[in-house]
């Protein structure tokens, strides 16, 4: 949530400032050396830019869409991206153009774990087969030359098990994109054909680009179905399958900053505000059934939130019980737990649980997210519960005990109802924080609301609309939660009961 808010601010605020800044028109690649260059974090473009333009100010973005937005909004002067995808992108962004010619061509292929040599060999054999039969040539022809973007139907029966492919869904055509909530593209077709060849079903886990190799080496995924460029560094960690394409890099910038186009009149008729919104709504939500993506994201966000709240509350009660125990073997571990969990970012805990704790276990990332957020929530909840319980006068407990209740019954009938009423206002805040905190699950390949907006942005390259839209969705979730907790607070007020009774 905060992330989204910051992004909106980031994009909106400096617009004015940058608009007035004139930069030296770029005529060739040499001119990049003292410019601001946007690249994707951990990509070969990133390495290339650092190596060839040490003087330049290099900004590392997390997704291609962010690189593109950086260029469009003037955060960076130039972006570097793969030349193939860029051709597609430029088609829908007439204000951008490439500088000079593509460069640094390199073979690309899928990545396989060094531990799973068998799968690697199987892929190479399979690749030879489709090359021989002409299927491969046909694929290249369709996706990259003719621009036919329909996926052929490929059966992937679950005969011999499941193949898990890690990929990045927002790379763009011809390799991969989401249309009507389905993955399509050259990568997808190739991976599916490979699965079919093995007689396996296939699942695509959508991840951050930087998380692909760690996920492969820890066994979260079976292979990487992304156009990975062959680099020495990567070769040390993974095995590359037979290269199936060659990709170069292109630098691109706003036309008005490129010498070649700078004299062209690039001002376009700007549509009215409402028409703009309507267009944005059409392209970001309706087109290619993107609302399905948002709907799935919304469901995931809600499921993770609710599970984490339940788990966190349960865990919090246990930790609180241990923390309040007089036995130091119980309360010291609880104290340590609380200070560690409160002293580390949730994102770090989330990654540690996913990549370290459950490294070799095939576990649904939603469960991992539930555990991570629940653990964090539990630490805070434990302290909230404790302050609530300790805030109740000793006399209440004594009165219960003196009456003949045992300790447990006194707690249940006398202490607990008073505690709940006391802590609800603070607990409400904690729960809302938790809901907003879930926006980081994209890091472990869960498609939540934020990730859905990232995917949409990567297709439409519209910064404003998807962000505002999901900001509103998050707000609505929080609002509904606040309302229902307010209601709970109201009905647990003993005097409310009387009001109801007297009305009856």
């Amino acid at each position, binding site marked *: 949530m905060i992330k989204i808010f910051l992004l909106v601010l980031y994009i909106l605020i400096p617009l004015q400032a940058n608009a007035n800044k004139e930069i030296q028109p770029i005529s060739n690649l040499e001119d990049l050396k003292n410019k601001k260059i946007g690249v994707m974090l951990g990509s070969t473009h990133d390495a290339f830019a650092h190596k060839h333009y040490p003087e330049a100010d290099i900004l590392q973005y997390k997704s291609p869409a962010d690189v593109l937005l950086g260029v469009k909004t003037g955060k960076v002067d130039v972006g570097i991206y793969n030349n193939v995808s860029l051709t597609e992108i430029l088609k829908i962004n007439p204000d951008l153009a490439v500088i000079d010619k593509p460069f640094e061509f390199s073979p690309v292929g899928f990545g396989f774990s060094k531990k799973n040599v068998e799968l690697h060999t199987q892929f190479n054999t399979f690749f030879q087969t489709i090359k021989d039969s002409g299927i491969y040539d046909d694929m290249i022809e369709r996706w990259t030359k003719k621009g036919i973007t329909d996926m052929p139907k490929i059966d992937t029966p679950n005969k011999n098990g499941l193949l898990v492919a890690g990929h990045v869904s927002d790379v763009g055509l011809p390799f991969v994109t989401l249309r009507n909530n389905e993955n399509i593209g050259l990568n997808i077709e190739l991976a599916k054909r490979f699965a079919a060849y093995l007689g396996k079903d296939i699942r695509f886990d959508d991840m951050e680009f930087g998380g692909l190799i760690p996920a492969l080496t820890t066994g979260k995924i079976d292979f990487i179905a992304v156009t990975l460029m062959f680099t020495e560094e990567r070769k040390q960690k993974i095995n590359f399958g037979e290269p199936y394409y060659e990709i170069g890099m292109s630098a691109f910038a706003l036309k008005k900053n490129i010498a070649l186009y700078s004299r062209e009149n690039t001002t376009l008729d700007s549509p009215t505000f409402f028409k703009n919104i309507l267009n944005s709504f059409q392209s970001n939500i309706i087109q290619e059934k993107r609302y399905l993506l948002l709907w799935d994201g919304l469901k995931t966000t809600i499921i993770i939130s609710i599970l984490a709240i339940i788990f966190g509350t349960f865990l919090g009660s246990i930790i609180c019980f241990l923390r309040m125990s007089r036995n130091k073997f119980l309360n010291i571990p609880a104290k340590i737990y609380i200070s560690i969990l409160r002293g580390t970012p949730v994102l770090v805990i989330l990654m540690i649980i996913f990549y370290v704790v459950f490294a070799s276990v095939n576990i649904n990332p939603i469960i991992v997210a539930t555990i991570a957020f629940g653990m964090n929530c539990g630490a805070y909840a434990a302290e909230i519960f404790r302050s609530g319980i300790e805030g109740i*006068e000793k*006399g*209440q407990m*004594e*009165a*219960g*005990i*003196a*009456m*003949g*209740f*045992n300790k447990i*019954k006194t707690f249940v*009938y*006398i202490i607990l*109802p*008073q505690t709940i*009423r006391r802590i609800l206002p603070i607990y409400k805040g904690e729960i809302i924080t938790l809901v907003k905190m879930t926006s980081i699950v994209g890091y472990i390949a869960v498609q939540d609301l934020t990730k859905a907006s990232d995917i949409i942005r990567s297709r439409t390259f519209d910064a404003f609309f998807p962000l505002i839209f999901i900001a509103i969705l998050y707000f609505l979730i929080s609002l509904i939660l606040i309302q229902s907790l307010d209601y709970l607070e109201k009905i647990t007020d*003993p*005097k409310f009961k*009387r009001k109801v*009774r*007297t009305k009856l």
Partner: protein
Amino acid sequence: MIKVENLSKKYGDLVVLKNISTEIKKGEVVSIIGPSGTGKSTFLRCLNLLDVPSSGSIFIDGKNILDKKIDVSKIRQKMNMVFQSFNLFSHLSVLENLTLGPMKLKGMSVDAAESKSMDLLRLVGLAEKAENYPDELSGGQKQRVAIARCLAMEPEIILFDEPTSALDPTMVSEVLSVIRRLAKEGMTMIIVTHEMAFAKDVSNRVFYMDQGLIYEEGSPQQIFDAPKKDRTKVFINRIRNFVFNIKTEDFDFYALNGEIEAFCEKQLVPKLVRANLLRVVEELLILYKPFLNKLELDLEITHSEKTNQLALTCQSEGHRFNPLEINDLEDDIGLKIIKKFTEAVNFEWKDNKNRLELIFNN
């Protein structure tokens, strides 16, 4: 019904109760009085194990409740407690405060518990507050609800821990009259209280506790009208005292006068009585003066807030010596003054100690 043997309670090194042994019979109303911090409340709280005794044994109906096999919760249901700070359950209405115990502990049905609770609320005069919540009641009302809540559990014994100490003076009587009524109905009760008149009037037996002991016990008449032991007397008569030690002939007479005046001021002694006291002290010291180098004199002035009696005691060690019996005086004006302003003069020589007591008219 309750038998206590050698009950002791220590908090670390601090000994609060020292080997208390006593017995309380069914139907008895016992008041426990005494200065603050002498273990009255601790004694009461030990009886139902809210505080666990350090040693000794407590028998309720012949069962030792310190025995680990005994279910203390069951014993507590028979022996309920009323607290100084009421401790009503703030999340429950008055009626629910009463029905909670019978329903959850005795398995009573809602209807039965509610009708019984309403009867009890009528008994304490609060039936119309049944739907109210504790924070909407006055202190006196809260304490009456707390008593009714106790009664709802049908206890055989009720322990009252300073039930009126947290109340406004105007609300004390409404609570006391409810307790009085219970006493008449034959409920066994142990009451820790500072309300002396009430204790005298309601109880069969009074314990005076001091320094962790039952220092003196007896019928209310014995304890309140004719206490035998010193500390009991001091407490019952609310006696305050002031001691001045004279070692030489050259003692600071003005300091003595100043301190006597301050003491009298504090005790609200009438001005005339104070003037008389000062005169008597002066005359007495003139009589003592020739001997002051040979003996050490303790002057003690005591005042009882209850009887308003002011007394002056002079104590010295050694041979029998009474300054009022000196024969070779130049004149007897001093003696006359002393006689005129005092109501009674007692002299005693015992164990080599002279004790001269002068009691003043009021």
